[in-house]
C-alpha cells in the first residue's frame, strides 16, 4: 500500500470547515468532504493492517524534542476508522436534519463539525503529550460551541459549565506536563516511559493529569457537567459528543497507565481508586439513566455509565503487561461499540423529537408501528449497549470478562456483567415506548429518509460489527 502524508487526515476536514462557510454549496461541500475524509480514514485503517510497523512522520522534518510527530499504528488506525464511520453517518443525518430544523444553526454547524473531525484525527495521530494537549483543546472548544448551538438558555448554561470545567481540566493537564518537563525534560511518550522508570518524582505530576483527564471524560465525581451538556443540544451534536468527544481523554488515561507509568506500589492505590470510581460510575450512571423521563438525559447518563467500564479496567491496564494486546483490544472494541451505538441512539432520539416535538419518553412515537426503521435503529443500538450478541458490545464485554478472570480481577468482571443488566433496565423503556399504541403516539409525520436511514445503518453496523471483530482488531494485535 502506498504511504501517504498523515497530515491530510487533519488538513482535509479543516479545509472542509473553511469551505463550508460558503453558503450556496454548503451541503455539497459537507457531503463531498465527509465522504473523502471517511475514505481516507478507511484507507488509513487498512494501511495499518499491512504489517507491524507503525508509520511515523515528523512535520517539517523537525525531529524530537523540537518537532511535532504524527504516528499511525494499529490503535490509531482503528480509532480513525471509528471516527470516520460515526462522522460520516452523523454528517448524512445532519444534511437532512438541518434542512428541516434549526436552519439558522445549520449554517455554522458544518464549520464546527469538520473542525471537530480534524481535532479528533489529530488527537489519535499525536505522538507527544503536548500535541495531545492541543488536540484536546480543539476538541473541547469545538464541543463547547456545539453544545451552545441551539441558542436557548438551557444550552448556553450547559455550554458555559462545560467550558469552565474544560478550561480547568486543561490547566491542570498543563500543570502536570510542566511538572513532568521540569523533572525529565522530555514530552514524547516513548521517551518518558524510559525516563520514568528511573526516578519517582512523577507522582506529583500524575495527580493533576489524572484529575484533568477524569474531568474531561466525566468520571465520577466529575461527571455532573455531562448530562446537561449532552442533552441540551441538537441530536447530531449530542451524537458526536457522547460517542466521540468523550473518548480521547479516556484513551489517554489508558496510554499513560499502560505505556508511560512504571509499576510502582503507590500507583497501585491510585489505580484502585480509579477503578472504584469507574464502578460507581456504572452504578450511579445506570441508576440515574433508569430514572430519567426524557430520552436525551437518559442517553447522557448512559454515557456516564458506559465510560465507567473503561475506568473500572484501570488495574487491568496497569497489570496487563503480559496480555497487553488483549487489554488494548478490549478497550478499543468497547469504545467502538459504544460510539456507534450511542450515536445511533442519539440520532434516533432526534427523529423522535422531530416527530413528537417533545423530549419525554412517554411522548415518544410508537416507532414500531409508524416508523419501523427508526425502531430497528433503536433496537440494534440498544442491543449493542446492553451487550447482546452478535454486537460488538458483546464481544467487548466478553473480552473484558475474559481478561478479568485471567488476571484474577473477579469482582471487576462481576460488576461489568451487572452493568449489562442495568443497561437493559434503561434500554427496555425505550423499546417499550416504541411498541405502545396509545392513539397520540401514532404520529403520522414522516421522517426524512436520510435521517432514518443513517440512524438505522449506524445501529445496524454497531450490531453486526460483532461478526468481524477479528478483522477489526487485527491491526491492534499487531501493534
Amino acid at each position: 500500500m502506498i504511504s501517504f502524508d498523515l497530515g491530510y487526515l487533519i488538513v482535509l476536514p479543516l479545509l472542509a470547515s473553511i469551505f463550508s462557510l460558503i453558503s450556496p454549496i454548503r451541503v455539497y461541500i459537507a457531503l463531498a468532504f465527509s465522504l473523502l475524509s471517511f475514505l481516507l480514514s478507511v484507507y488509513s485503517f487498512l494501511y495499518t493492517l499491512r504489517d507491524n510497523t507503525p508509520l511515523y512522520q515528523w512535520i517539517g522534518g523537525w525531529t524530537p524534542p523540537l518537532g511535532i510527530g504524527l504516528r499511525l499504528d494499529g490503535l490509531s488506525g482503528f480509532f480513525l476508522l471509528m471516527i470516520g464511520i460515526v462522522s460520516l453517518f452523523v454528517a448524512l443525518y445532519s444534511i437532512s436534519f438541518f434542512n428541516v430544523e434549526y436552519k439558522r444553526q445549520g449554517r455554522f454547524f458544518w464549520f464546527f463539525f469538520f473542525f471537530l473531525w480534524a481535532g479528533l484525527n489529530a488527537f489519535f495521530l499525536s505522538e507527544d503529550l503536548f500535541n495531545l494537549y492541543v488536540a484536546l483543546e480543539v476538541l473541547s472548544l469545538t464541543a463547547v460551541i456545539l453544545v451552545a448551538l441551539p441558542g436557548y438558555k438551557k444550552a448556553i448554561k450547559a455550554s458555559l459549565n462545560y467550558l469552565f470545567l474544560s478550561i480547568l481540566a486543561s490547566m491542570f493537564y498543563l500543570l502536570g506536563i510542566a511538572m513532568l518537563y521540569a523533572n525529565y525534560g522530555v514530552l514524547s511518550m516513548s521517551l518518558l516511559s524510559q525516563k520514568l522508570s528511573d526516578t519517582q518524582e512523577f507522582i506529583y505530576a500524575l495527580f493533576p493529569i489524572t484529575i484533568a483527564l477524569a474531568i474531561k471524560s466525566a468520571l465520577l465525581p466529575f461527571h455532573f457537567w455531562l448530562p446537561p451538556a449532552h442533552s441540551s443540544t441538537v441530536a447530531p451534536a449530542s451524537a458526536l459528543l457522547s460517542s466521540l468527544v468523550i473518548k480521547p481523554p479516556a484513551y489517554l488515561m489508558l496510554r499513560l497507565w499502560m505505556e508511560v507509568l512504571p509499576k510502582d506500589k503507590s500507583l497501585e492505590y491510585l489505580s484502585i481508586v480509579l477503578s472504584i470510581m469507574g464502578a460507581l460510575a456504572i452504578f450511579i450512571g445506570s441508576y440515574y439513566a433508569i430514572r430519567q423521563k426524557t430520552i436525551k438525559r437518559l442517553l447522557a447518563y448512559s454515557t456516564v455509565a458506559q465510560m465507567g467500564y473503561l475506568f473500572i479496567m484501570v488495574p487491568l491496564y496497569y497489570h496487563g503487561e503480559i496480555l497487553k494486546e488483549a487489554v488494548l483490544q478490549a478497550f478499543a472494541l468497547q469504545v467502538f461499540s459504544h460510539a456507534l451505538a450511542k450515536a445511533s441512539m442519539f440520532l434516533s432520539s432526534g427523529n423522535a423529537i422531530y416527530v413528537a416535538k417533545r423530549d419525554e419518553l412517554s411522548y415518544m412515537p410508537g416507532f414500531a408501528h409508524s416508523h419501523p426503521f427508526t425502531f430497528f435503529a433503536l433496537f440494534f443500538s440498544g442491543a449493542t449497549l446492553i451487550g447482546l450478541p452478535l454486537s460488538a458490545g458483546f464481544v467487548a464485554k466478553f473480552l473484558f470478562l475474559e481478561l478479568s478472570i485471567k488476571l484474577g480481577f473477579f469482582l471487576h468482571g462481576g460488576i461489568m456483567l451487572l452493568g449489562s443488566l442495568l443497561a437493559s433496565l434503561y434500554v427496555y423503556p425505550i423499546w417499550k415506548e416504541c411498541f405502545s399504541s396509545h392513539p397520540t403516539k401514532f404520529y403520522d409525520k414522516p421522517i426524512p429518509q436520510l435521517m432514518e436511514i443513517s440512524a438505522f445503518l449506524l445501529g445496524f453496523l454497531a450490531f453486526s460489527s460483532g461478526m468481524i471483530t477479528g478483522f477489526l482488531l487485527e491491526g491492534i494485535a499487531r501493534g
Partner: protein
Amino acid sequence: MEKLAVLSLLLSSFFASIIISLLKEERVFLRSLVNVVAAVYKLFVISYLIWSVYKGITFEIRYPIVPFADFYLRIDPLALLFVSLSSFLWLLTTIYAIGYLEGSPNRRRFFTFFNLAVTSTMGIALAGNIFTFFLFYELLTLSTYPLVVHRSTSKALKAGGIYLLYTILGGSLFMLCLVLLYVFVGDGNFYTGGNPKVKNWAMENSLMAKLLFYGFFFAMAVKSAVFPLHQWLTKAMVAPAPVSALLHAVAVVKAGAFGIVRLVYELYGVDLVQSMNLWQPLAYLTAFTILFGSSMAIFQEELKKRLAYSTISHISYIILGVLLPGQLSTMGALLHLVNHGIMKITLFMCLGNYAEKYDVHKFKELDGVGRRMPLTTLAFTIASLGLIGVPMTAGYLTKKYLEAGAKSAGEEWAVYVFYISSILSTLYLIPIVFKAWFGKSKEEVKGRKLEVNPLMLIPPLITAFLTLFFGIFPEGPISPLKWIRYIASREYGG
C-alpha cells in the same frame, strides 16, 4: 458447494427477513411469496444435506470471528434432525400465520422478525461450538421479543418485559459460564461423545466443572421453562397464535432443550456426566417440573395457558430423558423433541382457529365448537391422544422409550413420573375434547362454511396426520426413529 449449502440455510431466512422489511405493508402477496419460497427452499437444501450426510460427506464452516473463539457451523446428524424439524414446522407455521394474520396490521414487522427468528433457530441447530450456539441463542431472544409484544396491548408489553428479563438474566449467566469455559479450557467445540479437552480439565477441577455444568444448565433451563424459571412462558401466551405455536411450543423452548442435549452429550459427554453424577439432582428437578406442569394445566381456564403448562411439563420429559443414563432414554428424549413439536404445534394451531373464528379463549367457551369445526377438532383430538400417549400415536412411542430407558437405568421412579403425567395429561386434555364435541352450545348452527380458511386448516391436519403416521409406522422409511437411533448410538460410542 457444501459450505454454500450450510450458509444458505441461514441466509435464506435472513435475506427473506431483509426483503420483507423493505417491502411496503400492502404488498401482501409478495411478502407471502417470499416467506413460502424461503421456507420451501430450506427444505430442498435439507433434503440435499440429508442425502449427502448419508453418503458420508461432512459440512462445516469455521472462521475466527473474535480473538478467542471461532464462528463454527457444522452439519452433524443431531443438527440435521433439529434443522429438519424446525424447517418443516416452520413451513407449516408460515402458511398458518399468513392465514391467521390476514387483515391485521403490522404484518411487515411481524414477518421480518419471524424470519429473523428462523435464522436464529437454524444457527442454533448448526452451531458447532457453544460460543456460536450462544450467539444465535441470544439472537433468538432478540428476534422473538417483537413477536411476543406484537399486539402492543399493555398485557403484551408486560409479558414482553418479563420475557426479556428472564432471558437476559439467563443470557448473563450463560455468558459468564462461557467466559469461564474459554478461560479454563480454551475450547468449546462440540464433539460426538464429549469434548476431550473439557473432560481432561474436569478431571482435575471437578468442583469448577460441576459449577460450570449447573451454570450452563440453568442458563438454558430458562429458555426451556424448567421450574422455577417457567413463569415467562405462561405470560408469553399473549402473543398471536402462530407465535405461541411455533416459537413457544417448538422453537424457543426446544432451543433450550437442544442446548442441554449438546451440553450433556457433546460438550461434557455421557461418561463425564455419569461419573461426576451431574445428572441426578437435575433429574429430580425436571421430574418435579413434569408433574408441576401437568398439574397446573388442569386448573387453567384459559386454553392457551393450559397448553403453556403442558409445554413446561413436556419439555422436561425431553430433559429428563437426556439426563437419565442409557441409550434408550436418549432415544426417548430425542423422539419427544420431534414428536412433541409436531403434536403441540397442532394443538396451538387448533386453538388459534377457535380463537379466530369463534373468539374462544377460555374453557367454558368451548361448547360444541367441535360440531362447527369438525376438522380442526379432529386434529386437536388426535394430537391430544398423542400427547397423552395413546397407542398408535407418536406419543406412545416416546413414552415407551422413555419408560424403557428409565427402567434400564435403574431409575424406576421416573417410570412412575411419566405414568402419572400421562394421567394428568388426560385430565387436562380430554375435557377439552369432550366439551368441544359434546358440549351444549347456545346456537346450533350447522354448515360447512364454518371452518376456518384452508391456510389455517391444512397445517394442523398435516401435523395431526403425522402424529398418527409416526405412531403406526415407527420403523417406516420416513420415520425419525431410525435417525434418532443412529444419533443416540453415536453419542454412546457406537
